[in-house]
């Protein structure tokens, strides 16, 4: 670090849930993402700093952290957009167990994905043909709106209902269930509604919209969940959810 370099202060969460913030001075760069800041600290200031990333371009959803109080993908967050009063505070995602420093254990997130039946179930259509699905059809359009989730956990971390009751399936899993339910090729669409309308499913959402507000790829889980609420209610009234 040369003396002319401009630096800024970065407070980084260290340890597990009971950890604390540790300050670092990091040199400013013209092009610098939050992930680069964390990398700089690991490479030059404290080799033991733990964090997670993989793709570095916003497709794997591994690098999400809490930056100045908001969950974000860090590889696509330019420092200049988030730095406040010359300072950054970086912590692990909330609502997930902390492994160490900036790394969380995403297991509950994926378990809920599974529990929400966020998964295709093969129908009995011919296996050697590809089902025609018109791109303009209502279902396909709805599925397309919700499908490009990178399972980063940002929405899950932003949702206060998840913080308030840890059995809530959460926005990402439900968003996936909605895309799956709109897939006309699926062999058990009612099964999805059964999975999401148990006590901890879609009806638990209070429409905070923090999920949609923070989703880095601009998905709208609020809309998806509202759709599931309606669809499962309808199915329930028709007695299909037994």
């Amino acid at each position, binding site marked *: 670090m040369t003396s002319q370099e401009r630096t800024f202060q970065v407070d980084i969460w260290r340890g597990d*849930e009971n950890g604390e913030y540790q300050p670092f001075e990091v040199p400013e760069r013209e092009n610098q993402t939050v992930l680069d800041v964390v990398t700089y600290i690991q490479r030059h200031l404290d080799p033991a700093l733990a964090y997670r990333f993989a793709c570095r371009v916003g497709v794997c959803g591994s690098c999400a952290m809490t930056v100045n109080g908001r969950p974000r993908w860090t590889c696509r967050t330019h420092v200049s957009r988030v730095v406040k009063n010359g300072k950054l505070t970086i912590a692990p995602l*909330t609502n997930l167990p902390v492994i160490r420093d900036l790394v969380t254990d995403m297991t509950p997130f994926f378990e809920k994905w599974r529990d929400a039946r966020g998964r295709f179930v093969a129908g009995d259509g011919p296996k050697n043909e590809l089902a025609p699905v018109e791109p303009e059809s209502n279902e396909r359009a709805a599925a397309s709106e919700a499908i490009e989730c990178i399972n980063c956990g940002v929405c899950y971390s932003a949702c206060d209902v998840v913080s308030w009751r840890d059995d809530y399936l959460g926005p990402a899993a439900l968003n996936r269930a909605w895309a799956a339910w709109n897939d006309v090729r699926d062999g058990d669409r009612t099964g999805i509604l059964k999975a999401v309308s148990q006590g901890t499913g879609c009806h638990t959402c*209070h*429409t*905070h*919209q923090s999920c*949609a507000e923070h989703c880095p790829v601009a998905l709208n889980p*609020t809309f998806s969940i*509202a759709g599931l609420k309606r669809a499962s209610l309808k199915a329930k009234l028709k007695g299909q959810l037994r």
Partner: protein
Amino acid sequence: MSISGLTRASRAHPGFVAALIHRLSGLALAIFLPLHFLMLGLALDEAAFSGAVAWSNQPLVKISEALMVSALAVHFAGGLRLLAVEFLGLTRAQGAWIAGCFAFGGGVGILFLMRAF
């Protein structure tokens, strides 16, 4: 130390504020409701009821009542908005809708005060 305190920055957006106000107003209404029923129940004894109504005409009580009316109006408007989100899938431009709900709630409260005094 905790990773994020009560004032999580992630909450600073209209959707969460609206939900919070909706909950607090609902809570206030739910607490007020049994009291309201008890007060009306006093009509079993005309004198007690007149006394209570007269008591309620004090300025401070009137202001509290205005707050309750506001809470009802805000909860009502916010509730309608929620129903629109859930049943009509209306998730766009919620910031403006939410501001409208607060304005409605505030407006009804002010109207109440203007007429009460």
